[in-house]
């Protein structure tokens, strides 16, 4: 990797293409050479344009009226499909339960491993990241018998679509773990806990009133990721035959494609606004790469 300078100088003659070109000494974000600016602009316009095209097409498709006019009827029609409204409500309820369960399960456990049993930290991390190695569709195959058992033995509760929260908590673990872990690493949990305990606070109070406020950025982004994941979840709910938002959108697509595209577009927009607000008001929590720059020197 480290080669003598002579070779690197002699290798500098061929033009590397405008796309790979940021060597000029300058501060990051301060513009750059004209060639690089043009290259960046072209890249952004082409790739972002491609990413935006289907979204624009959704908007175009879902606002078609009769004889080439524009109409918002598909959007107002959303309200007139009771199944759709039911799917939205179900998914929102599952999302609320998932966020609650995920926080109850993860926050105390993670705080406890940091403060009291650091040797378990790796184990907890491994278990939290494990769902990444087990595709949702595989999980359905294995969870099917468990859900059948719950449906038969736990009465109304066991057969409710809200039980999906139990499995959604597992799906969200990797993302939630990373978000909360990033926050925990940016503060000195052990010292905070020591201080709170030495002033007479019990563990519940230490966690709730001292540590949680200090990691609220991580908690917030973990929650938003959980909400987005639940609202977008299709694999498990469809194969366990629960009518969540995505399942209803899929079924509606066959009957009224205009309304289903309208719902899809609204849901994507909703998720985008959520994530955008998070990146604006809880910086550093969603992606670790920027954190060092934002910490006070």
């Amino acid at each position, binding site marked *: 990797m480290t080669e003598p300078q002579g070779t690197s100088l002699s290798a500098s003659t061929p033009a590397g293409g405008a796309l790979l070109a940021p*060597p000029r000494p300058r501060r*990051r974000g301060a513009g750059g050479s004209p060639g690089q600016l043009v290259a960046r602009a072209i*890249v952004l316009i082409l*790739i972002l344009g491609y990413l935006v095209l*289907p979204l624009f097409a959704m908007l175009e498709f879902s606002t078609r009226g009769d004889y080439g006019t524009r109409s918002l009827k598909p959007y107002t029609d959303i309200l007139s499909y009771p199944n759709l409204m039911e799917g939205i409500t179900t998914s929102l309820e599952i999302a609320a339960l998932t966020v609650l369960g995920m926080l109850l399960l993860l926050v105390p456990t993670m705080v406890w491993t940091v403060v009291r049993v650091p040797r378990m930290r790796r184990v907890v991390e491994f278990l939290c990241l494990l769902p990444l190695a087990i*595709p949702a569709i595989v999980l359905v195959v294995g969870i099917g*018998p468990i859900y059948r058992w719950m449906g038969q033995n736990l009465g109304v509760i066991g057969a409710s679509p809200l039980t999906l929260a139990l499995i959604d908590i597992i799906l969200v*673990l990797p993302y939630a773990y990373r978000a909360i872990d990033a926050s925990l690493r940016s503060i000195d949990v052990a010292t905070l806990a020591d201080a709170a305990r030495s002033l007479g606070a019990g563990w519940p109070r230490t966690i709730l009133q001292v540590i949680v406020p200090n990691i609220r950025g991580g908690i917030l982004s973990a929650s938003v*990721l959980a909400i987005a994941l639940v609202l977008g979840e299709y694999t498990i709910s469809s194969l366990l035959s629960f009518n969540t938002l995505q399942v209803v959108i899929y079924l509606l697509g066959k009957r009224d494609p205009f309304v289903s595209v309208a719902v899809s577009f609204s849901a994507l927009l909703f998720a985008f606004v959520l994530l955008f607000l998070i990146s604006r008001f809880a910086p550093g929590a969603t992606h670790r790469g920027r954190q060092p720059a934002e910490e006070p020197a």
Partner: protein
Amino acid sequence: MTDRAVGAPTPSDDPIAGSASSGAGGGSFRRARNVLALVPFHVYVLIFLVLPTLIVALGSITTADGGITLDNIRQLFTTDVFVDAFVKSIQLSIATAILGAVIGGILAWAVARGNPNGLLRQLVVAASGVLAQFGGVMLAFAFLATFGFNAIVTNVFKDTLHLDLLSDPSWLYSLTGLAVVYTYFQIPLMLIVFLPALDGLRQEWYDASASLGGSAWSFWRHVGGPILAPSFLGALLLLFTNAFSAYATAAALVSQGCPIVTLQIACQLQSEVVLGQENVGKAIALGMIVVVSVVMVIYALIQRRASRWVR
């Protein structure tokens, strides 16, 4: 399992435990309590993650009435439909991972060179989060509204440009269509995964390279490339598992047959059970776990190397 000494800057437990708790003599009690507090999490993960995985693993080596058999697993390698599904899934995942990694990597570079706190970056990152992780069924509909029957691009090509290209939307329902939609959500995932690595390239390194007379090419050839290579490979593997595990998009687009693994599992779950094939679905699922696990292990090894630079 792993050597936990690697990169674990955790405080040692003794001083903390000693200072936080009052009095002596509670050693074993305290130790018991320390472990007990972790029980709920582990029990939960055991029931809803480990148990389902065990059901899949054990199910794939048992018959319907509980006897041990290797027949289910043998079918994975001998039945044409299953072999074909795995081959197609792996091809699809490799192709879309490479395309997504290259296009997404270039996009990430363009974003990383901009203002780290700028609006553009925040918009792109938020949008990428939505498109990469939220999509599934809705992205399938987005492409139907773009390239499907009577959709905007189809109509433009047919009526305005009078080109045969793209005017027949049936390609969208084939593996080609799947590859296009998969690539569409791989690009933003690449951006999310790769952006931190690009941020790790310090300005000083550009400056050092330039002050020694290095060109753009020599910077990427001798500094940027080698540093980013592990991260890029890691991201590539992550994209592979992402495409390999994807189900919703395929389910919404493909209406005939079960050409890829995830669809094949769904077909096994939904179809009438053929006598003697009750657990074949579980064997296919186990096959998926094996493929993803192998990739994840390689990913972890590469990541360990990459983390030396991205700090």
